């Protein structure tokens, strides 16, 4: 009798254990409607049109749909923004693609920043002042109607820079941050035209990037670009919208080339959070990415049909705040070069199509190759190092979880996304660069060695 009793007790016990075990096993499904760990969030942004996914996710209620109460706050410059994400004053932010990478490898402030959402493609341009444009114009090939042939290469700027150099005057240009897309794009364009934009040498404490420079690049916050150029401190700049169109609008400068023409469909901003934050609040992070994906999809829906509404949102003073007409120029698929020379650039701002929001490893590696090219990474690294850093910083796994949930909820279709089962995270070799070179993300060192101007192998500046 005693034996059966023990047996029964054991049985009950194990049944209980089994039941709890089942419960924990089942729970991921039961908690499919998991609530975010942190509901009140504050995100930072810089006044640029490509912050649009954040503004749209707020205004169209996508954040609230995920149970998030988000405050959006404009930041003074990229450094302040990054520091505030690192010290936790901001939960996340609109960041330059190079920022999470630069922070992770320790160029500038060292910190672990990750991204699971790429915010847009393209959207930048290079503008020169009216005076420089007049000097460049004689060297620019013209069409039959007297308008310049686009893309305008830096070859036509070279004589001007040479003249300044001969006269002993510095040729100053502005970009927005040492690890910004704009810095690399401006450098790419200048170097493709034979102008050396200068090297960095952090190992010697030189982080100004002016070693052996023909054109001296310095940092100016985006919204201040037009006024700094108007004051004569810089002769030209590379920046996102609306600050190129504003130069046209104000009549102080001429955009000469868009980044779409420097590298077709280049990745631009990302949504960055600190690694620590992402580990502490995984459900919140996923919810944020979901809301942002919906916002990006909304922005590109029906062939940009929602763009006018988006422009109206962006022109509010608490977002970008520039005039409707200025923002509309680029956001609605046209770009005005010289005053009156308005051309169609339908893909000037891409938010969702071409898998714009997916964080590709190959995008991360392109930025790392440019960091090496200009000496921000002071020594040669093996290809495997590039892969490792890209995998540390870019997190397509989080993106995929968020996207799959959206598909399950019926908010988006599987066809809107890359095929997650087979996607390697590397885009096929790309050839649409202004200098005609080919970029293959799987062989970074071979890519670096192709450039005429730039550090190769284990060279030092």
């Amino acid at each position, binding site marked *: 009798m005693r034996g059966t009793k023990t047996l029964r007790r054991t049985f009950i016990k194990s049944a209980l254990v089994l039941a709890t075990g089942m419960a924990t096993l089942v729970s991921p499904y039961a908690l499919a409607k998991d609530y975010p760990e942190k509901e009140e969030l504050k995100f930072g942004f810089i*006044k640029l049109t490509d912050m649009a996914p954040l503004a749209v996710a*707020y205004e169209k209620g996508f954040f*609230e749909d995920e149970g998030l109460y988000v405050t959006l706050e*404009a930041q003074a410059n990229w450094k302040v923004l990054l520091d505030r994400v690192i010290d936790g004053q901001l939960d996340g932010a609109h960041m330059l693609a190079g920022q999470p990478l630069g922070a992770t490898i320790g160029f500038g402030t060292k910190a672990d920043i990750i991204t699971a959402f790429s915010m847009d493609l393209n959207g930048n341009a290079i503008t020169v002042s009216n005076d420089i444009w007049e000097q460049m114009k004689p060297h620019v090939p013209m069409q039959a109607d007297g308008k310049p042939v686009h893309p305008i290469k830096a070859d036509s700027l070279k004589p001007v820079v040479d003249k300044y150099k001969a006269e002993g005057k510095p040729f100053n240009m502005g970009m927005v941050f040492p690890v910004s897309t704009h810095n690399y794009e401006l450098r790419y364009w200048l170097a493709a035209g034979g102008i050396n934009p200068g090297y960095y040498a952090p190992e010697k404490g030189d982080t100004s990037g002016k070693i052996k420079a023909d054109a001296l690049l310095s940092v100016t916050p985006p919204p*201040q670009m037009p*006024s700094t150029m108007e004051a004569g401190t810089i002769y030209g700049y590379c920046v996102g919208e609306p600050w190129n169109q504003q130069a046209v609008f104000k009549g102080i400068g001429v955009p000469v080339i868009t980044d779409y023409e420097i590298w077709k469909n280049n990745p631009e901003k990302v949504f960055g959070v600190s690694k620590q934050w992402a580990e502490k609040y995984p459900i919140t992070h996923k919810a944020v990415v979901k809301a942002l994906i919906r916002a990006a999809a909304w922005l590109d829906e029906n062939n940009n049909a929602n763009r006018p509404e988006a422009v109206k949102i962006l*022109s509010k*003073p608490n977002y970008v705040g520039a005039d409707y007409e*200025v923002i509309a120029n680029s956001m609605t698929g046209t770009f005005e070069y010289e005053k009156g020379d308005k051309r169609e650039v339908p893909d000037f701002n891409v938010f969702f199509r071409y898998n714009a929001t997916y964080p590709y490893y190959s995008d991360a590696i392109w930025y790392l190759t440019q960091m090496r090219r200009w000496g921000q990474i002071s020594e040669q690294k093996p290809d495997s190092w590039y892969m490792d850093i890209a995998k540390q910083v870019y997190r397509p796994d989080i993106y995929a979880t968020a996207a799959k949930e959206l598909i399950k909820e019926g908010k988006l279709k599987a066809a809107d996304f890359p095929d997650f089962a087979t996607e390697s995270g590397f885009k096929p070799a790309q050839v649409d660069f202004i200098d005609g070179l080919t970029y293959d993300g799987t062989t970074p060192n071979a890519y670096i060695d192709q450039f005429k101007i730039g550090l190769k192998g284990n060279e030092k500046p």
Partner: protein
Amino acid sequence: MNIALSNIAWLEPFVKVAKGENVAQNVQLITKTIGIPLVGILVFLMLWSAAANSIDTSLGKFPGPAQVLEQSKNLLAEHFAERERAEAFYQRQEERNAQRVKDDPTYVPKIRDYTGKNTYIDQIITSLVTVLSGFLLASILAIPLGIVIGLSANLHAAFNPVIQIFKPVSPLAWLPLVTMVVSALYVTDDPVVPKSFITSVVTVMLCCLWPTVINTAFGVATIPKDLVNVSQVLRLNWITHVRKIAIPASIPMVFTGLRLSLSIAWMVLIAAEMLAQNPGLGKFVWDEFQNGSSDSLGRIMVAIITIGLIGFFLDRVMLRIQRSVSWDKSATLR
């Protein structure tokens, strides 16, 4: 001689004219106290309007009085529109909370603050709260310090060089240090007040400390010899001496210092908000400058006038307090 709006003395001549007393003299008084300033303001508005029309910037014409009026109306309208949006936000939130309680009965609903933008009125209130906090903090430190220094010639000699060195330092120089120190020391998960508020308050405090210290010390040090002698004859102990002799005798100087401090505090705050991106009127000005829209200049001008009016108002309040606590009623304070 007072033309202060905070003083109802200016009503007196009207009453007298109405009563028929000394009509000629009082009408003259009215012209002098109200008419002339009014003419001054009108002339200024005309000059401003004319000058504004002839200044062309890359963002359009310099804002004249008409644009400023229009932008003030816009800012007010935006304020009320934002309040309506806030209402809708709370309603949506309540519905969402109710739904969640239905799904998960253990959930304790929580109402979160509105996440929309700060309106112009909100910015004004933030700035006022910040400046008064910084000023109060500075006063709490500065007055006792001033008294102690004023009482002892040795202490005065010891502290004076330090005070003289820190007094002329601009707030903008302090700001980076203050920001770093505040973010290093003020670490909590759920801050009661935002970091940016602490940064502003500390910067304001550091800059407006000195006039109060110097004036209080001077006031205490220059108590008439007779009073000091009385205190010695009565053999008052130190505490009683401070309470009964030093403080009452130096009150006018203390308030001279406080008034200076408050006006400095207000100027410093605007600069600090601008540079550190702390919420408030300074940030409003900076944001509008960055926006570079065709309305921006007009909005900045509205802010400038608001800042001026508030500064004027703060100064008048201090003047009233100074008058009421000053024992020498014959002295003209302005």
